[in-house]
């Protein structure tokens, strides 16, 4: 099905199932421990051996030799594959770092060997008997030191944020110089780790030249092509199966060392091999969100109208790596006639920087929305009002191009009302509650909506059960449930008459999970397949297709009503289709919007920051399942609190690695850090996005929330911190007098 004109009325608009808060259909399995994740597939293939991955102990250089005698002689060892056994392997899609092969070490904890043994304990013990002779080389590990020489580099994150090396509209420099009120500050965001709960894990089994990977991957289609490219085998010889994924956040968009080394280990041992990256390996072996240094300049008239806005960002990466697209949202979020956006990329020898939840916007909004807060204060305007004043309904770079639907103003107004914003004292550091300084902060949220092809197959059996098959993944996003809701709505059956099978590369290729594109596109693909199945049903039952109604497990036309199951009484009906898109995303800018409100308390003596209240108001098209969509947003808000207050991969600038590479050193929010969270979805549809009229929402929730926390800390204390995270050491020397 080609979607190239705005959606009109269709069966989804009935909203009998879609749009209703619905318990997850996979909930009974997830809450009872009966949902099998990658490392747990004891049932799929017998005789599984255990793999253990050894990571490089240097950040840059070569391996001169590897001594394996002791490891090979260790009990239970079946095979050892080292990086010296083969030339450097190809890379998978969209990755800068090479995963395995050859003597060159590109980054710390790059995989250098896999040991396969009868048991996990044996594989682990043997791996530490491998002796590696390194020839280290000097590397570049300090972004701040390299930033001044970093060249302009453009990029598309592939996840909805992009920019050429430099964008200029009007005359920024002239307008900024002439502006009555100016703001010019720099902000930094640190390297961050996805830290998903399930480590990267794979079971690999060869059957002749056929390879099956039971793995944990967000993008099955990409993964299938990537592992084939890396191993140099035809893609049709590879099957991936990933029905449950214990979190990804961008860290599992790609084939990583676990899949490659399970496959190589299984080949060498002539046994199926299961392995997981150990927790201490993950931060340096895989990808991370790169640190940024951002400069923002805003010029405005006295009345608060922005006349000039510039956002420049510098990040670092390995050779062939991409910049963090932190300026992307600033191209679209606020009006202003004179504009400058630029990205610079410094070559670094740290592990690969790549997509993490809302790449680009997440760190970009952390800077932009603090700058907006600072500018509002300089103008003597309320920060909500300042944002409303500078709203735009058109793409500021191309005023002929309108937003498909944009209600940022509605989010801000409703949020302010519900949060009690009118009670906020405009002066910072005025409110005390016992030993706490209390403050409120606001930030806009913004993230683009992406359209991408997505396919599905639907089956109807003689019991009236509708089965959906697609390689779409559910990484906690609720895909199982919204896909079931879509099929139930389209075929006129109850939710319990729908079976959903996901994550198997033998199924039609779906959008996958990334860039908050999963929900809208994957359900639109299911919609398309269901339209075809409805046609097949109507034809089988001899109905006039134009007026057939699918409802209550039956098909009705005129006075005639037949049970849906009847259509498959002579044999299963199968339909397959995909959604693909015309130019609607080019003719109209499709984005999602939010307003984040946060109240914090800052301990007057210690500078400890506690988040007391959080509210997000989101405008993201039709909300398919308000229950799981709310969870996506509160989860993103939680990760945003982490980014604001604690998350930071500490760089050892001499040895070139992330020091705090486990869940004790890399701090993420825990229960005690997060209060009750409120989310409001504006009741809206976007007919430009797909027949579902939905847009992405999973990443919108993190975009802006960090800035709202930082703005609340400023409001509480009068201390403006522009270097994330806002740890107490950055506050404690500057706190107002406690007494």
């Amino acid at each position, binding site marked *: 099905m080609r979607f190239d004109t705005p959606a009109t009325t269709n069966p989804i608009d009935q909203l009998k199932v879609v749009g209703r808060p619905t*318990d*997850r259909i996979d*909930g*009974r399995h*997830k*809450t*009872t*421990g*009966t*949902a099998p*994740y990658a*490392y*747990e597939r*004891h049932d799929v293939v017998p005789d599984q051996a255990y793999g253990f991955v050894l990571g490089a102990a240097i950040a840059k250089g070569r391996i*001169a*030799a*590897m*001594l394996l005698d*002791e490891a090979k*002689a*260790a*009990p*239970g060892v079946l095979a050892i594959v080292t990086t010296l056994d083969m030339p450097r392997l190809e890379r998978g899609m969209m990755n800068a770092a090479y995963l395995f092969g050859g003597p060159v070490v590109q980054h710390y904890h790059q995989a250098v060997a896999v040991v396969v043994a009868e*048991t996990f*304990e*044996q594989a682990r013990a043997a791996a530490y*008997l491998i*002796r590696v*002779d390194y020839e280290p080389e000097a590397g570049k590990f300090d972004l701040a030191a390299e930033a001044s020489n970093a060249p302009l580099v453009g990029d598309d994150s592939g996840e909805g944020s992009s920019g050429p090396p430099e964008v200029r509209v009007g005359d920024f420099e002239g307008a900024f110089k002439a502006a009555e009120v100016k703001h010019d500050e720099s902000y930094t965001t640190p390297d961050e780790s996805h*830290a*998903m*709960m*399930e*480590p990267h894990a794979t079971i690999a089994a060869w059957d002749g030249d056929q390879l099956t990977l039971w793995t944990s991957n967000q993008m099955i289609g990409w993964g299938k092509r990537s592992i084939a490219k890396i191993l140099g085998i035809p893609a049709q010889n590879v099957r991936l199966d990933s029905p449950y994924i*214990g*979190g*990804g*956040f961008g860290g599992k968009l790609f084939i990583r060392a676990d899949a490659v080394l399970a496959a190589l280990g299984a080949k060498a041992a002539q046994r199926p091999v299961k392995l*997981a990256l*150990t*927790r201490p390996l993950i931060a340096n072996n895989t990808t991370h969100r790169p640190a940024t240094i951002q400069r923002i300049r805003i010029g405005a008239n006295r009345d608060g109208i922005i006349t000039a806005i510039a956002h420049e960002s510098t990040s670092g990466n390995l050779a062939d790596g991409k910049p963090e697209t932190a300026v992307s949202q600033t191209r679209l979020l606020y009006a202003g006639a004179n504009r400058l956006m630029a990205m610079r990329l410094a070559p670094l020898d740290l592990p690969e920087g790549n997509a993490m939840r809302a790449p680009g916007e997440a760190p970009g909004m952390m800077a932009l929305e603090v700058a907006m807060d600072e500018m509002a204060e300089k103008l003597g305007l309320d920060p909500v009002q300042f944002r409303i004043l500078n709203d735009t309904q058109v793409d500021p770079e191309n005023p002929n191009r309108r937003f498909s639907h944009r209600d940022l103003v509605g989010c801000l107004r409703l949020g302010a009302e519900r949060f009690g914003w009118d009670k906020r004292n405009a002066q910072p550091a005025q409110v005390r509650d016992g030993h706490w300084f209390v403050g409120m902060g606001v930030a806009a949220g913004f993230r683009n909506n992406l359209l991408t092809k997505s396919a599905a197959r639907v089956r109807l059996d003689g019991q009236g059960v509708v089965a959906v098959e697609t390689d779409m993944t559910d*990484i*906690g*996003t*609720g895909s199982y449930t919204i896909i079931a809701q879509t099929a139930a709505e389209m075929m006129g059956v109850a939710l319990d008459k729908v079976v959903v099978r996901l994550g198997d590369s033998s199924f039609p290729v779906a959008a996958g999970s990334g860039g908050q594109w999963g929900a809208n596109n994957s359900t639109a693909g299911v919609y398309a397949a269901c339209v075809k199945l409805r046609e097949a049903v109507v034809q089988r039952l001899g109905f006039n297709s134009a007026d057939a109604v699918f409802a209550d497990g039956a098909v009705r036309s005129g006075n005639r009503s037949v049970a849906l199951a009847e259509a498959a009484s002579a044999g299963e009906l199968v339909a397959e289709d995909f959604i693909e898109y015309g130019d609607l995303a080019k003719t109209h800018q499709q984005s999602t919007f939010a307003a984040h409100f946060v109240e914090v308390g800052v301990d007057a003596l210690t500078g400890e920051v506690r988040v007391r209240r959080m509210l997000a108001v989101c405008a993201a098209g039709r909300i398919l399942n308000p229950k799981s969509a709310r*969870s996506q947003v*509160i989860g993103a*808000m*939680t*990760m945003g609190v982490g980014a604001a207050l604690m998350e930071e991969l500490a760089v050892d600038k001499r040895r070139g690695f992330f020091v705090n590479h*486990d*869940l004790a050193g890399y701090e*993420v*929010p*825990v*229960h*005690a*850090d*997060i209060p*009750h969270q409120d989310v409001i979805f504006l009741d809206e549809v976007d007919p430009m996005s797909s027949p579902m009229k939905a847009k992405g929402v999973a990443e919108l929730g993190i975009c802006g929330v960090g800035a709202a926390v930082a703005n609340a800390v400023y409001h509480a204390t009068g201390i403006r911190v522009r270097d994330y995270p806002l740890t107490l050491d950055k506050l404690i020397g500057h706190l107002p007098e406690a007494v």
Partner: protein
Amino acid sequence: MADPSELNVNRREVMAGAGACAAVAVAPLSAGAQPTPVETPVLTQVSFNVNGQSHALEVDTRTTLLDALREHLRLTGTKKGCDHGQCGACTVLVDGRRINSCLTLAVMHQGNTVTTIEGIGAPDNLHPMQAAFIKHDGYQCGYCTPGQICSGLAVLDEIKAGIPSHVTADLTGPVQLSEAEIRERMSGNICRCGAYSNIVEAMTEVAERQG
């Protein structure tokens, strides 16, 4: 301070020493490698009760309780998130108390009674806490969920038993059930998807129903 000359090392000797170090660094590994004796794993018998069923296992003494459950008994509902006691995904109940099963060896549990998520309820026979997690959407990817539920049950018991926490205001009276107590006590169970707000609501509902 000692006179540097007393060290009796001249520049030539220092340089020679540095050269020797450099030579060692680039020498083939095999030249200096002393083969260490490789010991065969020590296997030990251990028996414990898991979810009402007795199990007698022969395990490597290095095997954690977590791996004994997941790899030997194939009870994969208990999750391995970090293997270092940092995340709580492996939380199980041993003799009624919650522990991180990755931080304890299987052989240390002779005669113990272990309850895992599989022993708490089943898909067609949910425990009220499991049902409350579903109702309040107290999970997303599901990987930390069994640990959260095991911890959640133990936390309510700990509060009932009067065991104080960091946020307990009055150490002499009974411990009050509050969201602050729940959040404090659950903080060893990380949920990176960020379902905390919903988990607290699920636990509160179960606690209030228990009375």
